[in-house]
């Protein structure tokens, strides 16, 4: 008899709602990644104007908390600053 008695609302609307919130979360992560790459580029350019820095020695790290995220930037700056500066012998 169960075939004739259907619950008024199935599980599909729940699936739909869960999917929507998951996708919102995924998109927020992606926009975060974009922000990080913008920050990385601009900080790199700013410091690069004053010191010759090696792209391989720049570390960006983001630690996500529940409401905020912490950005840690670790850049190695050589003493002999610009590659174009005259080298003292």
């Amino acid at each position, binding site marked *: 008899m169960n*075939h004739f008695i*259907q619950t008024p*609302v*199935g*599980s*599909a*609307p729940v*699936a*739909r709602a*869960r*999917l929507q919130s*998951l*996708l919102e979360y*995924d998109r927020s992560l*992606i926009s975060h990644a974009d922000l990080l790459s913008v920050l990385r580029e601009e900080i790199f350019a700013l410091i690069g104007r004053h010191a010759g820095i090696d792209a391989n020695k720049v570390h960006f790290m983001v630690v996500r908390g529940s409401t905020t995220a912490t950005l840690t930037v670790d850049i190695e700056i050589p003493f002999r600053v610009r590659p174009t500066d005259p080298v003292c012998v």
Partner: protein
Amino acid sequence: MGKVIVVTSGKGGVGKTTSTAALGAALARGGQNVVVVDFDVGLRNLDLVMGAERRVVFDLTNVVQGTVKLSQALLLDERLDTLYLLPASRTRGKEALTEDGVARVISELRDQFDWVICDSPAGIERGAILAMRFADEAVVVVNPEVSSVRDSSRILGLLDFKPLKAETGGRLERHLLITRFDPARVACGEMLSVDDIREVLPVPLLGIIPESEDVLRASNLGAPITVCGRESAVSRAYVDAARRINGEWIEMTVPCENKSLLTKLLGRRAA
């Protein structure tokens, strides 16, 4: 110059390999030269679905590494004389496939065949990226289920910039293939509908493949469903999808099984 299609999904077990074999065989039955390529190095399955596992001697990795010629690794299908299989290696790691090597093999295949259909491994790692790297078109396989739809959404994102075609300013043609669809469950609100899925994955629909026991039967027998289960609803849906890939316009329907009145009265078989 043939077209290269990647069959991808992100999530495993949604029907990539079944779909690769079914679409390949359907196109070959139409008289076109088709090769299906297994990119799932280490976990190859396409040879099993095609029923060619006992004949595999060389594989994609051997050809990529240049140890054997392409012609030595290609296996002709036992039933269709325009369908070939290039199997994956079962023992070597994914690292064995270099991008340059894959580029060379795909280009050779493109010269020889009308269609090169690449069966992607699950996931979004190197193997999956390599499978989509040289594609002209992508078939994104999805089940009406939350995790599958979410993973396919990520794959669509990757298809925007990972393939060479996208990198060089072009745009990959993308198709959505919904598999394991059960209209009865949708009707009683227990499954995501086609519209629900398309809202999240807004790409042209290639086909709707119904859930069916015939898929397991074809896999048991080792033949593409479009070869051994020709009269089944699944086969008809795949044949229509293959014709759409080929540029034909075919009305989109959800094929139904031809059930007897008695079966209908007794209710649906348990899924």
